[in-house]
């Protein structure tokens, strides 16, 4: 799947996160800001990378501003951002679990 436009998902409310995804050639870059960076920064990035890998996203700039979200919220927001940034989105629920 290819990121063809900029897209946003999520909010900056507590227990949520904002994900901004934009097209980028040649690399998958993740920029993460979190209120719990020291404790959970690596975990949040791992969840985001796993979601992107399952969706076949290998090129994009993903900017995440986390406000203490659980793993399931991180996954949902990353997947929603991708679904809004690709040309044709058909949910493959087994790849989204």
């Amino acid at each position, binding site marked *: 799947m290819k990121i063809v436009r900029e897209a946003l998902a999520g909010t900056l409310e507590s227990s*949520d996160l904002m994900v901004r995804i934009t097209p980028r050639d040649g690399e998958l870059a993740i920029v993460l800001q979190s209120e719990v960076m020291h404790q959970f920064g690596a975990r949040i990035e791992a969840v985001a990378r796993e979601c992107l890998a399952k969706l076949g996203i290998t090129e994009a700039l993903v900017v995440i501003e986390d406000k203490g979200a*659980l793993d*399931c919220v991180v996954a949902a927001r990353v997947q*929603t951002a991708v679904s809004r940034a690709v040309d044709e989105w058909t949910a493959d*629920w087994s790849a989204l679990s």
Partner: protein
Amino acid sequence: MRLRRSMLFLPGANAAMLSTAFVFKPDTIMFDLEDAVSLREKDAARMLVFHALQMPVYGDMETAVRINPLSTPFGLKDLEAVVRAGVDVVRLPKTDTADDVRALEAEVERIERDCGREVGSTKLMAAIESASGVVNAVAIATSSKRLVGIALAGFDYVMDMQTERGDGSELFYARCAVLHAARFAKIDAFDVVFSDVNDDAGFLKEVDLIRRLGFNGKSLINPRQIDLLHNAFAPTQEEVDYSRRVVAAAEQGEKQGLGVVSLNGKMIDAPVIEHARVVLRRAEASGVRQ
């Protein structure tokens, strides 16, 4: 017997509420993808609820999702997500006829087969929100073996009836019709939301009414209402003591092979025994009324 006294509605797009709602321990957590979610956030809410349903935190609580009507561009997508995520109950809004339930059931079965989920394991609930739904309540309540209950939704109903929420008299016929249909079909019946979360006295007055009518429970929009509701539905100590005596007498009679049992000179038949067991189950779940 599953208790369904409290059905806590949560906006499907609200990450914080979805992440923490289980701590309030309602009988049923109802993730809402319909009216509580704006059109532009339907996709995000669906994804959030898909993941929230798979959190291993619910224990004995029942999970349910109010999907969008199948006539909208969102309904079927909601259904695909939540059945695959393992939801216990799908709530269909704006149910006007039995065919609405049958159409939902057919789609649920297709998805269950498609994803390998046991066919029949997804239960259904129909929300009645119109004069048409009330008139067809019996047909709706008996339309599917998957139905665990029917619920009256007050706001849309009073709009359809060209009136407004008041002292409850505007809901009298609908409450009785929905309740009778549910009892005829031997499924649960749920009352409307009480929207003024700061009016505990008004809430408890309404809860007392619907409990005495015979409703199983009520839709809630604030976690504060859960304990109030559970306490109001809890039996009194006197009811518990009597129910224990009834069950003990019934068990004794069964051991002795008696067809009919009496307690203090009064005959105890099957409905009395069953009611006593329900009372004890409620006491076990929420203690004795304070």
